[in-house]
């Protein structure tokens, strides 16, 4: 008997089998209690509320969201570059600094990256209270670490040969260093940094759902009052904001910088650093009296976590990550492959856009109208949201791909679906899986969001511990989250390396 041999294409489809047990559990938990509400939610999407009052509110909320997102983005990009440089080996090589510091900075960034901005937000809100600045700080902490990782990865691709060539000119070390890294930094900023603004907008909305203000808070309030028409007004305005930001970013070109623009960018760079430091110091000293009381209680509080229960929460979180990742990987090629015609592509793209647009907490709350809370429902929510993101990438890559193999397959008499699978998707499968491995890192962190709302895994425990100011428990949960995320990142790193 021949051995089963898996290739990249089959691995992309195989995880779809998790949908069988998921569908079973969701069917068992199905109820018609809130089905009418769900219907109303869907219908309201095409009939959002539009009047003077809500338009004024939308502009106010958009303004708040944009301010938090812009500041978070700018600070996290600038400090992402700085920490990216500090965590890249080329910096230590040029300045002859012991590698010990490189390892310490890398470790520190890995730890803070492993915790999602929502968790940072929840913890900081509990310590410092609801505050506009908390939104910026909560986003900036993990974003700086994520950005620095991407910048460092790019800097580490600088070849030793280039290093030797510039080093041979024997200029000041800072000159050689800047010349070597400049192009990588500018390119990474163009290809990745600008896109992070969209992420910052989404994260701000998500934090708003937990009370930080802006569009997210309005979405939450509309949901709580079951005012779905109003909810969709906010969601569509979010969509417009995201599309607008994307289009503006596309228009920005850095190829022909003139003198004034160069000076302006340099001024923005240094002003932001100065402003951030001053604000950080102000924030720390200004709110010290309240905070130290809360931080002291960390050592006074006790933990009621039972080991086995805690272990179950950890296992639930891991299963949640795995199931969501499986859906995010296999659902897009499965659906696009089956409905492989021009007419079906438009609704699929629209659905994927909606799944990306609706924040996971709102999505899970909507699904909860006709289903009981369960791990399967949380996995489906997170999986669908991320499938919206992976499908966007898949569509973009498929659109730009050479169609010759597809035409060749069709000329051999293969069906449209088979031709798509073997002539188009099979060439994308490897890079698609590599992206999914990266996405999986994010999914692991996002389990916290659905966990908090959907009462699943460590997220639910975190919410409970935070509400009761059980700081020891909070720390234990955070450590567990961190370990899961770091182990996940290591495994995904190996997978990415083997795929690229």
């Amino acid at each position, binding site marked *: 008997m021949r051995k089963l041999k898996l290739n990249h294409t089959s691995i992309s489809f195989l995880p779809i089998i998790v949908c069988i047990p998921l569908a079973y559990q969701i069917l068992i938990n199905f109820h018609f209690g809130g089905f009418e509400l769900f219907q109303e939610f869907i219908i309201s999407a095409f009939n959002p509320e539009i009047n003077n009052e809500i338009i004024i509110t939308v502009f106010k909320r958009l303004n708040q969201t944009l301010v938090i997102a812009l500041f978070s983005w700018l600070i996290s990009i600038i400090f992402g570059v700085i920490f990216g440089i500090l965590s890249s080996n080329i910096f230590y090589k040029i300045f002859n600094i012991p590698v010990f510091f490189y390892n310490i900075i890398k470790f520190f960034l890995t730890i803070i990256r492993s915790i999602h901005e929502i968790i940072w937000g929840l913890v900081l809100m509990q310590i410092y209270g609801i505050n506009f600045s908390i939104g910026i700080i909560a986003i900036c902490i993990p974003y700086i670490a994520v950005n620095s990782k991407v910048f460092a990865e790019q800097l580490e691709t600088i070849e030793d040969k280039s290093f030797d060539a*510039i080093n*041979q*000119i024997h200029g000041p070390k800072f000159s*050689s260093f800047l010349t070597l890294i400049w*192009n990588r930094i500018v390119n990474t900023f163009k290809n990745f940094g600008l896109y992070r603004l969209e992420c910052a907008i989404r994260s701000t909305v998500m934090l708003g759902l937990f009370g930080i203000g802006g569009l997210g808070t309005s979405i939450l309030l509309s949901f709580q009052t079951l005012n779905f028409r109003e909810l969709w007004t906010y969601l569509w305005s979010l969509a417009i904001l995201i599309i607008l930001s994307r289009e503006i970013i596309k228009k920005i070109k850095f190829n022909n*910088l003139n003198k004034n623009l160069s000076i302006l960018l340099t001024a923005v760079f240094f002003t932001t650093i100065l402003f951030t430091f001053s604000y950080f110091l102000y924030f720390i000293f200004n709110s010290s009296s309240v905070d130290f009381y809360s931080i002291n209680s960390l050592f006074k509080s006790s933990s009621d976590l039972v080991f086995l229960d805690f272990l179950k929460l950890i296992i639930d979180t891991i299963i949640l990550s795995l199931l969501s990742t499986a859906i995010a990987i296999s659902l897009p090629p499965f659906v696009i492959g089956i409905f492989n015609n021009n007419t079906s592509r438009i609704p699929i793209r629209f659905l994927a856009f909606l799944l990306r647009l609706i924040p996971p907490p709102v999505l899970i709350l909507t699904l909860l109208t006709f289903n009981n809370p369960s791990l399967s429902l949380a996995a489906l929510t997170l999986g669908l949201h991320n499938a919206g993101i992976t499908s966007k990438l898949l569509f973009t890559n498929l659109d730009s791909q050479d169609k010759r193999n597809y035409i060749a397959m069709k000329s051999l008499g293969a069906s449209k679906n088979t031709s798509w699978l073997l002539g188009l998707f099979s060439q994308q499968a490897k890079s698609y899986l590599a992206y999914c491995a990266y996405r999986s890192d994010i999914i692991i962190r996002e389990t916290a969001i659905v966990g908090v709302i959907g009462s699943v895994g460590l997220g639910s425990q975190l919410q409970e511990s935070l509400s009761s100011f059980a700081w020891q428990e909070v720390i234990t949960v955070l450590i567990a989250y961190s370990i899961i995320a770091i182990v996940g990142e290591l495994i995904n790193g190996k997978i990415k390396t083997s795929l690229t």
Partner: protein
Amino acid sequence: MKNILLELKDISYVKEKNLILNKINFKINSGDKIALLGKSGSGKTTLISILNGTIKPTKGEVKYFNKRYKELDVNQKQKITTIWQDLRLIEGLSAEQNVNCGLLGKRSFYFAFKNLLNIASFKRAHKYMQSCKIPQSIYSKEINKLSGGEKQRVAIARSLIQESEILLADEPFNNLDPKLITLIKKLLLTHENKNNIQTPSTGLVSLHRLDLLDGFNRVLGIKDGEIFFNLERIKLKKSHLDEIY
């Protein structure tokens, strides 16, 4: 008596258990124009990397201006310039920005910053680019968009703008047409200060084409990491070449 600029004493280099260079001894005197001949993989590039201090020999000693590499100050290190076989230009920068990189050793950090922002002065760079016959239309073109020959001349201009005393060049005539080879060879081997362009007085150039030996005063033959001959060019015979090829 001629002034010794570089001296290699019993140099050996081992990489991953392979002996790349074996007991190399020779001197480069001031004003020498040395052609380094040898088959591909004979150790020419490694020898040049040892001469410019990029790699440390496993055994032996290299003397630069009668000093060890560690003892040299920055000004002395700047007296050596290299044209690399693989050019090693900075991607993403324009041709003129790349040539300006050659000035990093003589200018401040502020200059490097302005160069990257494309707001530095390119006057000097343009002079050297002109002398290397780089067409004006490609001065501001990104390096990745240039042809092999254009890139080659940008690398040469970057090296010459350093105005060093010693030139180490690893197959610098690759990708160039016969007319350009004659011109660039003249530029590299004729030490003169014309139109404010200063070229190195001493040079070691690795070559593959024997018809380009004209203009060199000495020839160094290398085979399997060992020096087979080190003689004046006029004494070079066919038998010498048969030994190394």
